[in-house]
């Protein structure tokens, strides 16, 4: 569905990634984990056209593109809600920007209900909790109506309990809304709880170092023996990467 081939990005003499390949299946949940500064966010920047690629191909639904702007929804660590708009107005921002009409508000209200924001539609973002703000940002992401959703550490700024509840909401994106998800996270356990496929990345130039396909049913528990084993292995891999970088 999304096919990235031989993607290259350099900043002067610094090669962030060179010949990077990725193949995302439709309705899959793929998570990228890697050491800090390995180029994960730059990879998303290239995918979304924030920075231009030096080389390589991005193929989306068999169409060759220079970037995925207008084709993918993107959610970042910060909720980026506008304080002068209410929660529902923030969620409807993609509609306002693209001047789309139809039953957008009805859909937004349904999503508010589904994600536990019912009754908070007219609240300003600064009057609700971080978890609610992030859920609102998630509704805004869904309002893009793109099949592909890019998530750049969307839960990293949240406390453990809120994070857990939002993880289950991210699973809903896949199971109920049929989205194809590509997520970056530093949290290995989170990756193993959510992903169908975990890709462990190397330091720069970034490459896929190891691939884990997880077939067990979701929602998963973090204390499952197989997951613990993989978690330990990935952490050792990442520690080795960091140690190698320091040498």
């Amino acid at each position, binding site marked *: 569905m999304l096919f990235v081939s031989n993607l290259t990005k350099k900043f002067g003499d610094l090669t962030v990634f060179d010949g990077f390949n990725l193949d995302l299946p439709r309705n899959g949940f793929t998570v990228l984990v890697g050491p800090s500064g390995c180029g994960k966010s730059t990879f998303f920047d290239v995918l*979304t056209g*924030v920075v231009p690629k030096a080389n390589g191909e991005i193929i989306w639904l068999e169409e060759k593109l220079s970037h995925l702007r207008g084709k993918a929804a993107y959610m970042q660590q910060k909720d980026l809600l*506008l304080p*002068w708009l209410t929660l529902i107005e923030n969620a409807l*921002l993609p509609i306002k*920007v693209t001047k789309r009409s139809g039953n957008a508000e009805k859909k937004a209200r349904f999503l508010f209900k589904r994600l536990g924001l019912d009754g908070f539609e007219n609240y300003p973002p600064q009057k609700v909790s971080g978890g609610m703000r992030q859920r609102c940002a998630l509704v805004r992401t869904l309002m893009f109506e793109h099949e592909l959703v890019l998530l750049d550490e969307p839960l990293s700024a949240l406390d453990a309990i809120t994070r857990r509840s939002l993880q289950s909401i991210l699973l809903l994106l896949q199971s109920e809304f049929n989205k194809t998800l590509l997520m970056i996270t530093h949290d290995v356990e989170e990756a193993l709880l959510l992903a169908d496929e975990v890709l462990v990345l190397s330091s720069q130039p970034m490459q896929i170092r190891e691939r884990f396909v997880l077939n067990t049913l979701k929602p998963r528990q973090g204390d499952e023996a197989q997951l613990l084993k993989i978690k330990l292995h990935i952490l050792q891999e990442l520690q080795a990467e960091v140690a190698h970088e320091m040498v």
Partner: protein
Amino acid sequence: MKWSSCIALAVVLLILAIWETACRGFSIPDFILPTPSRIMVVAVLQAPLLLRHGAITGLEILIGIGLSLLMAVPLATLMFAHRSLEKALAPFLVVSQAVPVFALAPLLVIWLGYGIASKVLMAAIIIFFPITVSLLEGYKSCGNDYIMLFRLMGAGFWRTWRLLYWPWALPYFFAGLKVGVTVATIGAVIGEWVGAQGGLGYLMIQANARLNVEMVFAAILWLSLMGLSMWALVGILERKIIRWR
């Protein structure tokens, strides 16, 4: 009343008390330095005259604010939209402030006459700079993450301006406007000094020529109150519009 307001009030009262005592103690004549109490009496007793001239100065300032807003908002926006325009116009903006407004006043009176127009333009020139610079800085302070979000949504510049840049820059705009309205009196009064048929500046020049120093001080008091009222009004407007802060 807040502590900070109490302290400010106490400082003002202390200065006035020292002034009053010094004038009485050293028997300073009224035509050199009148006592604050005498100034207050004149400011109240001559209120109809001061109000008539104050209305003229106030009108000049208000039209000046309107004119400067009409120039500053589009210019700051265009300079933000086109960085090359900012580079080209920035030296002219700086020059407009580097040339003292005192130097321009006689020329403006010659060009625009003794009527209200020259004073309006003087006030507008003074207000224009802080609003333009503040608004431009406000636009520039907009978070990159937000700009990127709008780009990913496919928003063009003007749609982003309406939904993001303008509301984002509003606190900066109001900060510039607050500075502008308080210094606007300077422009209007200087214009009236150079040549006018009315206004508090005109009244000050007339009173000064007759050694009516009490009236000069009373006009200054009225001007200060006008500046303070406009500053407060902008503050109220700011709180009404920027409700998310």
